[in-house]
């Protein structure tokens, strides 16, 4: 199922916008998978998991290459969040193997998983901020555990909060923040140690379109500025396609559309249906697939 796409010419089916004057050299090939020379950051091999009933995920195999952003699509309740929690060992599979940074983690003791998890960042569905701690202490949670000096912590927290444009919330408590602000603080918390992999669990779920766009812009900024590999779970196609058809422009400080029919080559798609991976490919392949379920989902 894992594809290497070939479409070099712009794809007319893509919902990209026409925008001249892109700074990137030459057209981007839609769906060209990134080089796997360094080995995958994450690799699933025939992973299955069940909770007191029918399997939630069955026979899942895919990988995430360095610099790659994988967007996990699927209707609600299909097992997307479960899959994400398997990636950093928050859940254990019943069958199959999971490699994280080259280490097999499916049977790794919890104690050995903690150091691995510090190399990943995770943004939870509702933010999962610690409600008894200030924004500063939430964002600096890992640094505080590592006993980093206070001055250093403050500097890095300000830096992370500036990245998500929420520097003014430094001393506030999470309950005084809006839903969108909480997600952005959660992103700042996930990014503060510059992780080698970021896992976003429906970061725009339940948010209004404007706030969703702000969050997606932050995800894009992290992708394009730091080139951090990531897995993003969503059931919002609009967010997924925005990530493929736009790039973050550091000069303008905002996202800009790629030329008509072009897509980010490092952003690829996975789709789940009833616990099975039914699609793994580029946006080009996604919009041209014959799979009936995918087509229904896209429509």
């Amino acid at each position, binding site marked *: 199922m894992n594809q290497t796409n070939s479409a070099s010419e712009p794809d007319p089916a893509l919902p990209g916008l026409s925008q001249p004057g892109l700074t990137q050299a030459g057209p981007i090939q839609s769906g060209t998978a990134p080089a796997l020379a360094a080995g995958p950051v994450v690799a699933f091999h025939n992973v299955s998991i069940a909770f007191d*009933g*029918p399997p939630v995920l*069955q026979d899942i195999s895919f990988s995430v290459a360095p610099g790659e952003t994988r967007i996990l699509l699927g209707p609600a*309740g299909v097992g997307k969040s479960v899959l994400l*929690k398997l990636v*950093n060992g*928050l859940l254990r599979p019943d069958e199959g193997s999971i490699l994280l940074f080259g280490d097999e983690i499916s049977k790794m003791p*919890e*104690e050995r998983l*903690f*150091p691995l*998890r*510090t190399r*990943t960042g*995770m943004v*939870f*569905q*509702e933010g*999962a*901020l*610690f*409600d008894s701690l200030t924004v500063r202490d939430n964002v600096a*949670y*890992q640094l505080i*555990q590592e006993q980093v000096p206070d001055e250093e912590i403050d500097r890095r927290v300000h830096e992370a909060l500036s990245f998500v444009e929420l520097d003014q919330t430094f001393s506030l408590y999470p309950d005084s923040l809006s839903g969108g602000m909480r997600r952005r603080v959660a992103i700042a*918390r996930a990014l503060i140690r510059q992780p080698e992999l970021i*896992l976003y669990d429906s970061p725009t779920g339940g948010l209004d379109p404007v706030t969703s766009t702000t969050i997606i812009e932050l995800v894009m900024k992290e992708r394009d500025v730091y080139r951090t590999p990531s897995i993003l779970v969503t059931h919002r196609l609009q967010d997924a396609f925005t990530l493929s058809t736009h790039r973050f422009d550091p000069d303008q400080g905002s996202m800009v559309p790629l030329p008509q029919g072009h897509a980010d080559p490092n952003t690829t798609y996975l789709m789940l249906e*009833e616990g*099975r991976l039914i699609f793994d490919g580029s946006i080009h392949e996604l919009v041209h697939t014959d799979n009936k379920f995918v087509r229904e989902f896209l429509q």
Partner: protein
Amino acid sequence: MHLNRQMQLIENNETALNCGRPWDEISAYHRVILALPPATQHRRLVATGPIPPSCDILSMHERLPSNRRVRVNSGIPANKMATPIDRTAKRVVLTVQDYSLFAHRAVMNLFRPPRYGSEFLIQADIIGVGSAFIVLLSGFFTGGVLALQSAATLSEFGANGLTGRFVGLTMIRELGPVLTGVMVAGRNASSMASELGSMVVTEQIDAMRALGVDPMRKLVTPRLFACISMLFFLTILADAFGILGGGFVTVVMNHQDGFQYFSTAWESLRYPDIVQGLVKPLFSGFIIASIGCFFGMRTSGGTQGVGRATIQAVVFSSVSIIIADFLLTQVLLSLLARA
């Protein structure tokens, strides 16, 4: 082969499935297809209407499109199927096993870094200082009641002078430790279960794990040892205020000699009594924190689940304290012979 199988709809038996024909109208063959996992279904069939209590379908699990889960037994003859008693027994054994592993891990964490000293102090403050007022109040009035009751009984034998001895020994050996344990269980086992339970349902525990911090070390172990150590001191406080309460009643209400009360209370005390009274709170502290944290950490089912976990924590810890007190008394009485 698919005959005589039973199907049970979890939640209720009267839910309507998405669309299609009623269950009663579809053939046994189609019911077999429905029972197969989605990947092996030749075509998708969906039935509607109430599901009959028994149905001729193949043994499989199936998640129906309405997300109502239908459980079909796995072909085990009806007389060999697990009864509700079997299932409950297995669940109880599994819970006890989980609790034992949980408690073992919580204790062993003390001997391996990282240790969270500041968390221990915070919890010691919450449990110790926070519970001091209710413990001393309950101790004082329990001592007072003991003095009232014992004076009434002892006066029948002309032994009013033994009130101090009676109150002192009862408070130190039995009522001080048990009362303190039950009071702290009501206050702190519930708060531990609800706090950790809320963290579980809002994914804060998962977030902590994802950030590379072990919630067992960070949240459970400090609570456990703070509760054990604080219960020790709270029991001493309860004992002292219980004897004071008894003294207050003896002097002010029963108009007896206060010096006699306190001197008989003091003179009747032996080391085994004190040891017995101070060993019990160590166990009670362990029970309160381990049960409170255990039910909190295994919370599921949203806010309702938090409420359920809180109730379970208080009930199980209070009952366990009393049972443990009985067993400990037996053991300690045989070990510590009173001169």
